[in-house]
């Protein structure tokens, strides 16, 4: 073995070691966050946490049932707003690739994606809170929906572009109109990826606190009304965490654990649904 070979081998080893070390360093924060949240949250997590309402200060126990339902309602509203608008915009972008409006929309989506969530909260406050002079679940849903929108637009566009042109040609050759080809062939072909994109976007906004602080605000009581303030896991955790009470701190850790579990659940669901749909397409199901 020549000196050159030896040196090459050593370099290869060194680079490999460096890459491995980088991965470990990148994973440390994730591991620590999970460790702290779960080690503190799990002991505070009792069945009643899921079924009970918050108790007044000084009374131990109680739960966050209202906050969990509230978060579900908020992301429900956000999805109902962002999915139709986002998917249809994504279709527009992939179908009219070079239109001027298309580039404007694409640029707007990218900018929107980079806007700090607190700013989106301020925006939702201006359009959905001020006119009605009331914090509401709807305003919170609007804020989260606006955050989901660019994610869904861009994922839909990217995935539609991956659909082979031959599908569209096949549909057109059978006498389909362009819109028909999109709705019946191209969109279904990209569906697994789009569903994943939606679930990922959902998981992302489910953990947002800032846009909710002055839109959906908080509510100490159980509420499902869209025109009233509503409690959410994130805001509840925030409120409890900055309080001076030991009880509330425990509840905050428990809430954080539930939040992480919920987000993990959405991510896993995304993978599962994608695989399922893809297998259906390939026909090995």
């Amino acid at each position, binding site marked *: 073995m020549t000196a050159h070979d030896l040196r090459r081998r050593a370099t290869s080893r060194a680079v490999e070691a460096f890459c491995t070390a980088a991965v470990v360093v990148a994973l440390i924060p994730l591991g620590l966050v999970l460790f702290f949240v779960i080690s503190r949250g799990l002991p505070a997590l009792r069945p009643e946490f899921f079924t009970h309402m918050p108790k007044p200060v000084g009374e131990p126990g109680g739960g966050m049932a209202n906050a969990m339902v509230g978060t579900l309602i908020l992301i429900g509203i956000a999805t109902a707003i962002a999915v139709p608008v986002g998917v249809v915009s994504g279709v527009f972008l992939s179908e009219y690739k070079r239109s001027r409006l298309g580039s404007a929309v694409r640029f707007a989506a990218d900018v929107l994606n980079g806007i700090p969530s607190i700013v989106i909260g301020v925006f939702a406050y201006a359009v959905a809170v001020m006119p009605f002079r009331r914090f509401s679940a709807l305003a919170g849903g609007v804020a989260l929906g606006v955050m989901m929108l660019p994610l869904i637009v861009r994922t839909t566009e990217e995935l539609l572009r991956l659909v*082979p042109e*031959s599908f569209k040609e096949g549909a057109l*050759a*059978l*006498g*389909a109109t362009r819109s028909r080809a999109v709705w019946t*062939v191209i969109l*279904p072909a990209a569906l697994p990826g789009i569903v994943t994109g939606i679930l990922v976007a959902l998981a992302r906004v489910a953990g947002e606190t800032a846009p909710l602080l002055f839109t959906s605000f908080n509510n100490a009581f159980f509420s499902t009304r869209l025109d009233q303030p509503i409690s959410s896991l994130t805001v509840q955790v925030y409120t409890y965490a900055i309080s001076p009470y030991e009880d509330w701190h425990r509840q905050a850790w428990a809430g954080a654990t539930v939040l992480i579990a919920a987000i993990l659940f959405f991510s896993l669901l995304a993978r599962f649904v994608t695989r399922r749909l893809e297998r259906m397409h*390939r*026909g090995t199901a």
Partner: protein
Amino acid sequence: MSSDVETPPESGIRIRTEVRAPDPAPAATGTAIKLENVNFSYGQNHVLHDVSMDVDEKRVTAYIGPSGCGKSTLLRCLNRMNDLIESARLTGRVVVKGKDIYAPGTDVIGVRRRVGMVFQKSNPFPKSIFDNVVYGLRITGVRDRSTLDAAVEKSLTLAALWDEVKDRLSQSALSLSGGQQQRLCIARAIAVEPEILLMDEPCSALDPIATVKIEELIYSLKERYTIVIVTHNLQQAARVSDKTAFFWLGRLVEYGPTADLFTNPREKLTEDYITGRFG
């Protein structure tokens, strides 16, 4: 068709390379497509020059020529698939069954319904076999289940695929083999009962066995349809077609009965090409 026409070979694995004797002229064959001075270009790229030809009804017409000679482009002019290309321009007339399909106000959707197409790479939709076959019918608003069922059986039978898939119509079309997928695409095209079937190198991605099946299918389909096939495979042109057109750099060099063109070409260019001296 008269009864003394050569019947297609049984489904044995046999690749004929000889030139088939021309079919005896059947009664009253008309012209399905009439091309008059067709010029086609996109941008500065002039692809077809003054192509004029008549395509016989219920016959197989083959387009041959080296890559880039414009044969596929011409095929795509016949059902206006070239409309998808920006800056495409066509002059001249393409008359399909008496109607100029480039006349202003032409219903392009209607043209594509009457002129079906099978592509080089099989392109079944990621849907079930059944849904693939009835796609063209469903988009015209056919909903009646028994009508759809009947169309599926008929089209798949014509495409010689029924026996292989009849028990798994609800499975994904992508679970079929390459050759089966291409036959499915043929079934899908004929389900809407077009008058003309265009095939753009339908066997180029298939193995020899699947190729034989498609060729037999083409042979049997010409009883019902006018077929125009683009092929790079000269033996295939010789085997399946009644007439052959040879293209060279966007011009129609020679067009005539397949047997004549292959055994006794009129043009030197044609002779050089079919004997493999270039191309």
